[in-house]
């Protein structure tokens, strides 16, 4: 329902006071000159005072003629001025840093927006730190983030669409994509899902991410959340759809496949052979992380025959004093590692390092000496924990660490059969997943040979002239492969 602005001065001031429940922060000033009474309102800390005193008040009070609505809007040298008739939108503008100018006798109010917002400057990336490559990370301010994105994606093809999510407290959400490249179905799915959200408020973009994901019952993330503008922009340039949320330093990108979670922007910045090697290392470490501890448990609980006799001796010796079955031993150490990780994340940085040493070295060493665990298991657990941290996506790393626990329990209960059952279950589970309705295991299934070059491997750019086909970009070709391959140096005589 629209509420009109009161024409009488006293009534106007009173209703504003009442709307803000006599807040001490609502400042009002009344000026009378040129046989005219002007009332301005603003909220103390929401307004940039310097600008207010420099750009708005002097021209307002020094006028030679009486002000009219038109002259007010046009003669004051401020870019954002708006004429408002509705009382509740006036109140909203004031909250957002507006200064309302009310001329007694008019039915409208002119609002100048001079917002002041304190936020941190662009900083180095913390969670997704890189060895080299661009270093800045997104901040909490949507405008700063959009500014960075526009700066990186220097084309008018970039499309930004605005949405408001939240019924009680609204958050601004932007869907970002390249019009000529992004698949319309993907864009439509993303927009539809954001529009369909029914919730009172969203705390952060990670919450939005969970609301728009395809399946919320799985441990695997289906859309990538990143704090790196270069990763965000690279993905958009491949034809994906990105989402930025105000007040959140994490951006969302989709559609993604499982293998994208093991890509780092650094692979792109390195030479292709080194990049490929590192990427392979990550896939390997995922397998190690999932399979190694369960294999140890299975072999030592049921299948001694698997272990070569020479190794069996040293294994037996190190396990001779351990009073627990291998499952318990492994679970104990796994939980210890998880505890260390969690404590490390929560502790203040100054204490963190000391605690790491205490936990890692002292606890591990003492556990072995006390006969709680075997030396070899400590190595195996440390290795698989380390391996799980190589995933460039923190969410994926956590998912991998979580699925280890049921695997260890299954291995303890039914040995190799339990492990193979769990692995099969995992594969079928992954097959069933989707990201924005696109298959999650692409380009392996559905198999697309051309997309392997950029997703599984990292072949030289000249050899890989295509955008990943599973994203379904409108234009798959990045550049002319033939022309890109030749270097026209002057040949030496």
């Amino acid at each position, binding site marked *: 329902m629209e509420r009109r602005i009161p024409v009488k001065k006293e009534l106007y001031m009173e209703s504003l006071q009442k709307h803000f429940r006599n807040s001490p922060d609502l400042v009002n000033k009344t000026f009378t000159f040129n046989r005219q009474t002007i009332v301005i309102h603003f909220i103390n800390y929401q307004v940039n005072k310097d600008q207010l005193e420099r750009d708005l008040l002097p021209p307002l009070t020094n006028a030679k003629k009486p002000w009219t609505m038109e002259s007010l809007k046009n003669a004051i040298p401020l870019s954002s001025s708006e004429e408002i008739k509705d009382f509740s939108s006036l109140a909203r503008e004031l909250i957002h840093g507006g200064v309302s100018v009310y001329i007694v006798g008019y039915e409208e109010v002119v609002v100048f927006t001079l917002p002041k917002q304190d936020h941190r400057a662009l900083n180095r990336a913390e969670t997704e730190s890189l060895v080299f490559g661009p270093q800045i990370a997104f901040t909490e301010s949507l405008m700063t983030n959009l500014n960075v994105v526009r700066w990186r994606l220097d084309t008018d093809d970039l499309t930004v669409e605005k949405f408001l999510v939240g019924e009680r407290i609204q958050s601004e959400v932007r869907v970002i994509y390249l019009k000529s490249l992004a698949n319309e179905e993907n864009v439509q799915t993303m927009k539809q899902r954001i529009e369909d959200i029914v919730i009172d408020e969203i705390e952060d973009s990670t919450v939005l991410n969970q609301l728009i994901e395809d399946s919320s019952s799985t441990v695997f993330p289906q859309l990538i959340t990143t704090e790196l503008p270069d990763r965000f922009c690279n993905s958009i340039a491949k034809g994906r759809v990105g989402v930025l949320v105000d007040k959140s330093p994490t951006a969302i990108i989709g559609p993604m496949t499982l293998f994208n979670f093991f890509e780092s922007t650094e692979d792109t910045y390195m030479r292709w052979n080194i990049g490929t090697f590192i990427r392979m290392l990550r896939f390997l470490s995922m397998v190690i992380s999932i399979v190694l501890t369960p294999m140890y448990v299975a072999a030592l609980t*049921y*299948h001694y*025959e*698997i*272990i*070569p*006799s020479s*190794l069996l001796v040293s294994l037996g010796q190190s396990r001779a004093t351990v009073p627990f079955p291998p499952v318990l031993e492994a679970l104990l150490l796994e939980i210890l590692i998880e505890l260390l990780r969690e404590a490390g994340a929560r502790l203040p940085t100054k204490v963190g390092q000391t605690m790491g040493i205490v936990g890692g070295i002292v606890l591990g060493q003492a556990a072995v000496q006390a006969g709680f665990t075997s030396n070899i298991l400590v190595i195996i657990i440390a290795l698989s924990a380390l391996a799980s941290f190589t995933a460039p996506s923190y969410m994926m790393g956590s998912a991998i660490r979580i699925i280890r626990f049921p695997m260890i329990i299954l291995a303890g209960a*039914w*040995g*190799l*059969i339990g*492990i*193979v*059952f769990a*692995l*099969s*279950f995992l*594969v*079928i*589970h992954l*097959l*069933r997943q989707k990201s924005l309705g696109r*298959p999650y*295991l692409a380009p*392996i*299934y*559905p*198999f697309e040979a051309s997309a392997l070059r950029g997703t599984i491997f990292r072949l030289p750019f000249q050899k890989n002239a295509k955008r990943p086909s599973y994203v379904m970009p409108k234009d798959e070709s990045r550049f002319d492969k033939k022309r890109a391959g030749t270097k026209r140096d002057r040949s030496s005589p």
Partner: protein
Amino acid sequence: MKTNLNVPQSQTVQAFYLFFIVHTIQIGAGLMGVPRILFLDAQADAWISVAIAGVYLHFIAWIMIKILRGYENADILGIQTDLFGKFVGKTLGIFYLLYIFLILLSVIKNYIEVVQVFIFPEIPIWLMSLFLLSLMVYSVTGGFRVVVGTSFLFFLLTIWLVLTISKPITYMDWGHFTPILQTSWTDILKGAQRTAYTVLGMEILFFVYPYIKNKKNIALPVHLGLAMTTFLVMLVTVVSIGYFSPDHLRETVWATLSLFKIISFPVIERFDFIAVALWMMVVLPNIVLLCWMLVHSLKRLFHLKEKHSIFGVSVLLFIGALLVEYRMDIDLLTEWTARVGFWLVFVYPIFLFLYMKLVHRWRRRRRA
């Protein structure tokens, strides 16, 4: 029942995947024990039996494709009702259902038996069936694309096992094969017939055809899949005959798995444990594809909801797995499945083809 199916685009797959579908449904429980079965009949000339069976496979596939090409987008159930009328068509469909159920049960039982013999003598049957059936249900409820994905990915995950056979090859005694052609031709042909159980499953082509996107190109992947199957059967048969002594092979029920026994790596000594456990991944596409066929046919024949029939089928399989308890019963089950399968998969299509030609010609004449 409509003869032709309307399959939504989102449920179709490329013809390329037929290679994996046809190959993975054939390779499974049968391959574990095929060398001994062939050897019992055809002796050292078992490889000739495999070769004959392989050629015959391609012939049957050619006939099957011919039958399917006679229609626009039909599966075997639709074709049968079109040719024989509603009642006979449905009865034949039920016959197919029973046969698929039997083969499904025998695959599950055989694998459980192998696990009990090789890894866990005391693992309960109900637990193993629960493992296999839960994976089956999880995959089939995902829809046709997940089913095909299961067959494709598990093929990739297990095909490397073939490479490990290079070790037994080095221990082969080629003298076991000579003199060639000591066995009578009837025994060799009998051996070829005995291959049937190993290569059953190619009838999936009859069911999966409407779900293929580019139907023109189906011949190549199908024949390649069959060739791959023949190659694998040939490989394990030849290696087993060369590796085991004749008397030894006669007593080795799962010769293929026993071949893995001598393979070892620096960190893994007895590879056969891992191979037998991994064989679950070989058997799984089998079970999943067969179950899909069953569920799909139930929907076509009786309009049963897929969700209901999947759970119905798995409950029946579970009960069946518990009832068939002893080795003798499993052998009997396998024997019967092989016999039914031989007639249904390798003989019936020829008859169907001739009858179809006849009916179509007659219809054309009547229309003219």
